[in-house]
C-alpha cells in the first residue's frame, strides 16, 4: 500500500512563483528554499490534505499538460512525485505517513 504525505503546517509556508523557479519560505525553520518544477505544483496540489503520490499525479494532470524532460528515460511521474515528496520530508517541510 503506497504511503501518504502531508505538509506539516501549510500556514508556515510562503510560496512565491517567479519565472522558471519559485521561492518557498518556511516560518518554522526560518529557511528559504528556491524550488523548481514540479515541487511548487506538488505543494499546491497537496495543500492541507493527506494524499498519496498517485492522487497528486491525478490532480496535476487535470491542471497541467504534464510532460517529461525531452530525453528523460525511465522515471514514472509517480516515482518523481514520491522523490520530491521525500525531499520535502528530509527538509522537515512534509510528513510521511507509512501505511502498513
Amino acid at each position: 500500500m503506497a504511503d501518504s504525505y502531508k505538509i506539516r503546517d501549510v500556514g508556515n509556508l510562503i510560496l512565491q512563483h517567479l519565472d522558471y523557479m519559485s521561492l518557498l519560505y518556511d516560518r518554522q525553520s526560518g529557511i528559504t528554499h528556491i524550488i523548481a518544477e514540479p515541487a511548487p505544483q506538488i505543494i499546491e496540489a497537496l495543500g492541507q490534505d493527506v494524499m498519496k503520490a498517485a492522487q497528486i499525479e491525478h490532480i496535476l494532470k487535470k491542471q497541467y499538460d504534464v510532460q517529461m524532460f525531452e530525453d528523460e528515460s525511465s522515471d514514472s511521474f509517480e516515482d518523481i512525485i514520491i522523490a520530491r515528496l521525500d525531499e520535502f520530508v528530509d527538509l522537515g517541510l512534509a510528513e510521511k505517513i507509512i501505511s502498513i
Partner: protein
Amino acid sequence: MMSKAGFYPDTWLLVDCLREPDRALRLNDADWVALITMARAETLMGTLAYRLKDKKVPKPVEHIISDALIDSEYQYRSALWEVDCARRALQSYDGPVVLMKGSAYAAAGIEASHGRSIGDLDIMVSEGGLKEVESLLIKAGWEWVKEDDYDDAYYRDYMHELPPLIHKERDRMIDVHHTILPKTAKPNPNALAMIADAIPIEDGHYIFMPEDMVCHCAAHLMADGDLAGGLRNLWDMHCLLSDFSGAAGDFWMRLKQRAQQHELWDAVHLSARQANALYGTPIPTDWMQWSMRDTLFQKRLLARNSWGQQRHKLLRFAFYIRSHWLRMPPLMLTKHLLTKWRKGHKAHEL
C-alpha cells in the same frame, strides 16, 4: 547613579542594568555605549534588549534594541529548528534524549531563554546509547568537526561527550553527552539519575528536572568553564533559581541534597552566592557566606571594561589553567597544553 564612562566600575553597569532595567534609563550617552558594548561582549545583548524592550529609551537605543531582538528571534527559531531536526534524525532511537542548556530552556519556554543567545545543540543520552545516536546523526547529514586524531581521542576518552558533530547543510553543531562533567574531573555527577528523573516535554524530548538543571548550570559555570561567558551563565542560574524557588516550598532543601548527591554542592552553593551578589537572586540566608575565593571569582566575572575588552590578564590565565586542571589530572594537563601549544593553538586568547 551619577556616572560618566570610566568612573562607573565598568561591568557593574551591565550587571545593575540587567538586575534593575530602570537604572539604565538614567544613563548618559557614554554610559549607554559602554553598556551596549559590554552586553555584546558578554553575549547578553539579547537578554538586556528583552528587559528594556518596553522602556522609554533614547531613539538610537531603540534601534539597537530592535536589531538585538531580531537577532534573538533568529537564534531562538534556529535553535528550536535544530532540536526538531535532531528529533526527526533520532526518531528510531528509543532511549530518552535529554536537551541541555540553551536548547532546553528554549524548548521548555523557561524564563532564562528570553533573549538568550543559543549556541550549539547539547543533548544527553545514556552511555550505552552513544554508538547508535552517533550513527543515526551521521546518517541524517551530520559529520565530524574535529578531523585530527588527538582532539578526537581527547574528546572520547577524557571529555564527557562525543567529538562535536556539525550538520553539512545547516552549519549547526551538536554535542552529544553521556554525563555532564569529564570522567577525570573530581566531581562525579550521577548521570544515570539525571536521565532517569528527566521530565518529558511536548515534542518527545526530555529536560532535566529543576534541581538537576541548576546542578548542570552550576557545574558548567564553576567546574567546567574558565568563567568565560560567566556572566551569561550566571544569568541563567539567576533565572532558574528565581523560577524554581518561587514554585515549590522546599526547593532549596531538595536542591542542596541533589547537589550533594552529584558532588556538586560546592559549585551550586558558590554560583548561588555569586548570582545573589550580582543579580540579587533570592537565596536562603544561611547560604550567604562570602569568602576570599568568592571575591576572586567575582573579580574574574567583572573583568570587562567600557570598551568591551578583557582586563586582569593574569587572573584570567589562572582561571584558564584552573578550568583545564579541574578536567584533567596535572600530568595530563601539561601534556594537553603542550600538544595544543605545539600545534599552534594559542593557550586561550589572552
